[in-house]
């Protein structure tokens, strides 16, 4: 059995873990931004699907992965725009619209796929990796972390970018104020609606990018329902992270590693039903919540539309 766990295999497992974690990371970072600004974005699954579909279409027809990421992000933004209009600007119920958008995009992308790809099932060539010199030569770690597509490093950099944004910029302050006490932000002269709109659109871009990554790199193709609940996991990650981007990264990696662990245990021939293994990450998080779960500090105005001058 020792032979099974060769360097190559372990490297591939970890590589898979990172690949699986990236869409969750992007969705989680996106959701975190919305939540920080006071918008509970349940439509993120729909944004991911839009990103996955358009991202794939863009990459497939142009032959450029980068263009695919761009169209994917644009797809997410397009859905987010609806959400921003309906929930931020005119204050419709965020849960109703979020779920409706998710259902709608599930149906729409499946429909489009049916008419467009359901006979040919086009697939993209392998994403070319940006190999980081030296680091990539480290056994196991090298192939796992330093042989990814450039977008992966950008996503990781984004974690720290977000951290900087939240901690050290005026926008970070504005976002937090928009989520905690929007009226105070408003009287300080910052447009709450605009701030929240920016947050929701950013969520759309990130979720769309996550979807595009899922389709173009994760799977190399688009099929209906490809996001498979990743958006909802993103919501969970964002809430568990309590506003800290680095925690989203940890959470996403935890889920990715658990998925790879599933594969590893099976390859090792350990006879455990997949359902049981599947429960592990959730069980781990639940136990953490039971043990350490003090008052989760969600923004005070989360889910409440802001309208000037009402109380």
């Amino acid at each position, binding site marked *: 059995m020792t032979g*099974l766990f*060769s360097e*190559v*295999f372990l*490297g*591939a*497992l970890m*590589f*898979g873990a990172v*690949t*699986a974690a990236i*869409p969750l990371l992007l969705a989680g970072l996106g959701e975190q931004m919305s939540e920080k600004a006071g918008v509970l974005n349940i439509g993120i699954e729909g944004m991911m699907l839009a990103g996955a579909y358009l991202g794939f279409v863009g990459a497939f027809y142009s032959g450029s992965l980068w263009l695919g990421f761009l169209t994917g992000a644009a797809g997410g933004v397009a859905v987010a725009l609806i959400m921003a209009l309906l929930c931020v600007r005119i204050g419709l119920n965020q849960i109703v619209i979020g779920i409706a958008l998710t259902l709608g995009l599930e149906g729409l992308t499946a429909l489009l796929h*049916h008419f467009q790809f*359901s*006979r*040919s*099932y086009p*697939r*993209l*060539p*392998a994403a070319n990796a940006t190999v980081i010199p030296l680091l990539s030569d480290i056994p196991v770690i090298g192939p796992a972390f330093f042989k990814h597509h450039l977008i992966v490093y950008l996503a990781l950099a984004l974690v720290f970018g977000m951290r900087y944004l939240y901690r050290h910029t005026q926008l970070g302050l504005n976002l937090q104020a928009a989520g905690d006490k929007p009226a105070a932000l408003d009287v300080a002269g910052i447009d709450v609606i605009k701030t929240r709109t920016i947050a929701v659109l950013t969520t759309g871009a990130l979720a769309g990018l996550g979807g595009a990554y*899922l*389709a173009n790199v*994760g*799977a*190399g*193709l*688009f*099929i*209906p*329902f*490809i996001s*498979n609940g990743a958006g909802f996991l993103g919501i969970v990650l964002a809430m568990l992270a309590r506003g800290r981007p680095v925690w989203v990264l940890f959470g996403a990696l935890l889920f990715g590693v658990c*998925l*790879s662990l*599933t*594969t*590893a245990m*099976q*390859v*090792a*021939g*350990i*006879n455990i*039903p*997949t*359902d049981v293994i*599947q429960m592990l990450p959730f069980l781990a998080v639940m136990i953490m919540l039971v043990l350490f779960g003090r008052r989760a500090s969600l923004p005070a105005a989360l889910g409440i539309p802001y309208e000037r001058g009402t109380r």
Partner: protein
Amino acid sequence: GEVKSIAILTPEEGTDYGWNQQGIDAARAAGKAAGVEVVVAQGLGYGDVRPTLRELASDGASLLIAHASGYNTSGPEIAKELKVPVAIVDTPSGLEKGLVADYTLSGHQGAYLAGRLAAKMSRSKSVGIVVSGEPPSWNSQSAAFAQGVKAENPEVKITYAVIGPAAYSDAAGGKRVTESVIASGADIIFGQGNGSSFGMLQAVETTKAADGGKVYFIDVIGDKTPIDKGFLLSSVVWNIEPVYAAMINDLKADTFGTKSYSIGLKDDSVKLLKTAAIPDKVWTEIQMLREEVISGKIPVEPVYDAAAVRALMTSVAQ
């Protein structure tokens, strides 16, 4: 009795180069041959199909083919309720004359041959089985494939991986798990999964084997040749048309519900797909093995239970 039209109900759209498409195509072909109208209700999901069954029956279908193991509770119920013949899968004990017939489709014989083929062709002496779930019909093929591999060459390593409990549309998962299995040394992947099988195919196309050469894919049920990019080694193709044709005949002869239908190597309703990637010599050997399986010289018993399959995989993994 008279047979005017038959209806087939499938959980997914009939464009999957797999279970649903084979069922629908076969029903159409059988209907055409018998001069019978065919109604297709596809993409019904795995929920409650009683409404659709009732509606199709009230529209006058002479036979309802409930083409999913998830429909084998509702099918017989509606058959009794409305006195309409219904065909269901995976339930040999459910026969009822004039009302319920079973067709248990298992490609295990074909999968056995696929296992022999894989063991012959593997350069690294290591093959993988990747599935996106563990329904009985896939289990029997996984098990038979493993038996075939071991019968051909006990030295060949088998890696078995389930993507998730119900990861049928998890294409990214399919690709990820397949890549891991390839990294563990496999250079032939026997893959079963609906949407996720396209992810497996993608992994095979974009990942090199340990020796730097091609990784090959063995598919099941359908024929993905039209979308192949040269990585398809073979497929355990099911042809369900004879089954449906027999059902129509039995309906006409009023013998529907007295027997189970199945598919197998014998009448080529299960067969291994010949592709250019298979050398003629190997293909000839496989054809000889096929004869032995048909004659019963090589017994291949189906294993339907997921736990039993995993136990088997554990034992052969050593």
